[in-house]
């Protein structure tokens, strides 16, 4: 009995795939044809919660609110993937099977890569904001995925190249031992070496089980490298910077937080963080549009915090997706995730957080990237005033050229 049940379900699934998209039972389909479901899958309980998490949900809700009354309603679900690929993949399968049209955010590259495959298999949409691995638009690129906010290539190019140019020609990496850390180290090393620099060593630490980084920092110190590259994120980066200062690394080494947002600065405090260089495509105080966006979304944000880059990315990518849905009609968008993403690529993007831009053939959203320096305590004028722009990379140069990514979707 059990065996035949499983086989029948398998056959049904296969039939569904053949029918391109799998039809829901007619009555239910009619009821739900006007509802677009966005599932925000993010880190609600771990080290990435503050720069993603509940704030990502708030920003997605903001996008939905701005796209109200377009002939469809938007429902938003949320879940915690605990930074575990298996947990995230299970939720994603369930969500897609239960009628979620697009999954939003998904920080943690290992989880994002898992969901990238599931979205493609089920012909749904994956709107990634929080993961950084550039493989999402490289070897793992998919016609069902848009990668919005940043990637390891962009971060490496901006921060890595700036430091290499300023004389930082020898590097030691402290790297989170999973897909994201590896990609960030790899992409940064490429820029360092291209600028004539050398990587003297790297320590890969277990993620997320490491609480003390002193052992790795002392190794970095002993290598006599000029730059300490932190190929990690969130609280790990904050703890590394705190302990690097404690062990006196900052006296003769430059510390490069390769993926940082002002959230980490907020947690470190300006006296510890001042002078650090970091790269972000969004900061609330960039221009009138970003300030207007931040003021609009703040009442929804947990603790009325300023939105961080990944959260703003959830707003930008959801807004653009919903515009595409409005353009092609909700029924068509729900039936074919690939077509919805194709429509997103055909339309230019425009939102207050990132300005004007576009989504490339390989799924990469492009916009300018900004190199920031953390302000000294006496330069800061208020609670969230942490960063000043020191360099801008234009949109067309900020990301890896399409031809170099190795994305199979791109025909040369």
């Amino acid at each position, binding site marked *: 009995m059990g065996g035949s049940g499983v086989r029948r379900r398998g056959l049904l699934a296969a039939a569904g795939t053949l029918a391109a998209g799998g039809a829901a039972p007619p009555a239910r389909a009619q009821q739900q044809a006007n509802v677009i479901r966005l599932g925000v899958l993010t880190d609600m*309980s771990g080290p990435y919660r503050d720069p993603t998490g509940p704030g990502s949900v708030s920003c997605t809700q903001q996008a939905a609110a701005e796209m109200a009354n377009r002939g469809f309603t938007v429902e938003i679900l949320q879940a915690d993937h605990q930074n575990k690929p298996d947990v995230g993949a299970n939720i994603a399968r369930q969500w897609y099977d239960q009628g979620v049209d697009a999954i939003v955010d998904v920080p943690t590259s290992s989880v994002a890569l898992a969901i990238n495959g599931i979205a493609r298999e089920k012909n749904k949409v994956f709107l990634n904001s929080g993961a950084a691995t550039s493989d999402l638009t490289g070897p793992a690129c998919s016609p069902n995925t848009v990668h919005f906010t940043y990637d390891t290539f962009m971060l490496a190019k901006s921060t890595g190249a700036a430091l290499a140019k300023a004389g930082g020609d020898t590097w030691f990496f402290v790297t989170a031992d999973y897909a994201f850390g590896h990609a960030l180290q790899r992409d940064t090393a490429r820029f360092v070496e291209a600028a004539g620099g050398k990587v003297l060593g790297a320590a890969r630490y277990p993620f997320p*089980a490491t*609480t003390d980084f002193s052992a790795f920092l002392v190794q970095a110190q002993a290598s006599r490298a000029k730059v300490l590259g932190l190929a990690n994120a969130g*609280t790990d980066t904050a703890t590394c910077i705190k302990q690097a200062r*404690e062990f006196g690394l900052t006296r003769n080494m430059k510390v490069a937080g390769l993926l940082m947002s002002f959230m980490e600065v907020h947690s470190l405090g300006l006296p510890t963080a001042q002078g650090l260089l970091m790269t972000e495509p969004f900061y609330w105080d960039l221009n009138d549009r970003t300030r207007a966006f931040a003021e609009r979304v703040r009442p929804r944000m947990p603790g009325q915090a300023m939105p961080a880059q990944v959260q703003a990315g959830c707003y930008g990518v959801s807004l653009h997706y919903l515009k595409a849905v409005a353009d092609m009609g909700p029924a068509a968008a729900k039936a074919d995730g690939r077509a919805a993403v194709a429509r997103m690529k055909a339309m230019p993007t425009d939102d207050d957080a990132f300005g004007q831009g576009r989504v490339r053939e390989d799924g990469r959203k492009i916009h300018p990237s900004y190199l920031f320096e953390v302000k000294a305590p006496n330069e800061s004028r208020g609670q969230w005033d942490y960063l000043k722009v020191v360099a801008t990379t234009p949109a067309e140069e900020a990301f890896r050229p399409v031809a170099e990514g190795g994305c199979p979707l791109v025909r040369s």
Partner: protein
Amino acid sequence: MDGIFGIPAPLLFGQLLLGLINGAFYAMLSLGLAVIFGLLNIVNMAHGALFMMGAFVAWMLLTWFGLGYWWALVLVPIIVGAFGVLLEKLFISRLYKLDHLYGLLLTFGLALVIEGLFRNQFGSSGLPYRIPPALSGSWDLDFMFLPIYRAWVVIFALVACLATWLVIEKTRLGAYLRAATENAPLVQAFGVNVPRMVTLTYGAGVGLAALGGVLAAPIYSVNPQMGSNLIIVVFAVVVIGGMGSILGAVLTGFALGVVEGLTKVFYPEASATVIFVIMVIVLLARPAGLFGRA
């Protein structure tokens, strides 16, 4: 000649020292766990959350009341210890007659609730807490820079562990405690208020965890998950040392800190796993732990 297994000797000494410092935290936490298990028979899964509370209460004292590090060292163990007494009175005391598993489940649940509350209130990215001025700076030891604060942590932890051991092994109060674990009704018959003693013991164990939290606040990031990252390792330490063995917990804590530190030099990817590999080996060879009585 100039290295051990390809690692320069000075670097190795530095790593040994760092391992000892991390071992100090393991020792302080596992000491509290061992005391609680030894006397209450409760596997206190909330220990990590209470360690985290220690760091947060230190931050609150500084930010809300302007009371700095030295005040925190005195006040935090008392405040969090009192919270522990409350937990024991309200919840844990109801479980003494039941199987270990119930205590484990209850305290695990409490840990999740406490962490969740702090996460909702303070977020996950952590709060700044600076090293006190008197202990900032570092010594140049030739083979490495030793931050003065880290040296202070090792010395302070050693003193705290030694003091706890002396109280339990060498004082009349300690004798009552040990007697009560052997035969509570008999000790009660001699006129000792055993339930109150048990409550206070839990409070003291929690106070030790909170003290660890204060020590950790200036060097780790003060965030809600700081305890849950540590607690599993600390449990392994207690199991390896022998459940309930106080001396075992302290020695194993320091020793495993060193082993972990060395792993970070030779094969950093395995540094989170090495302690559990040792745990498996020890459990196979000596199921009662290195210092436990079978």
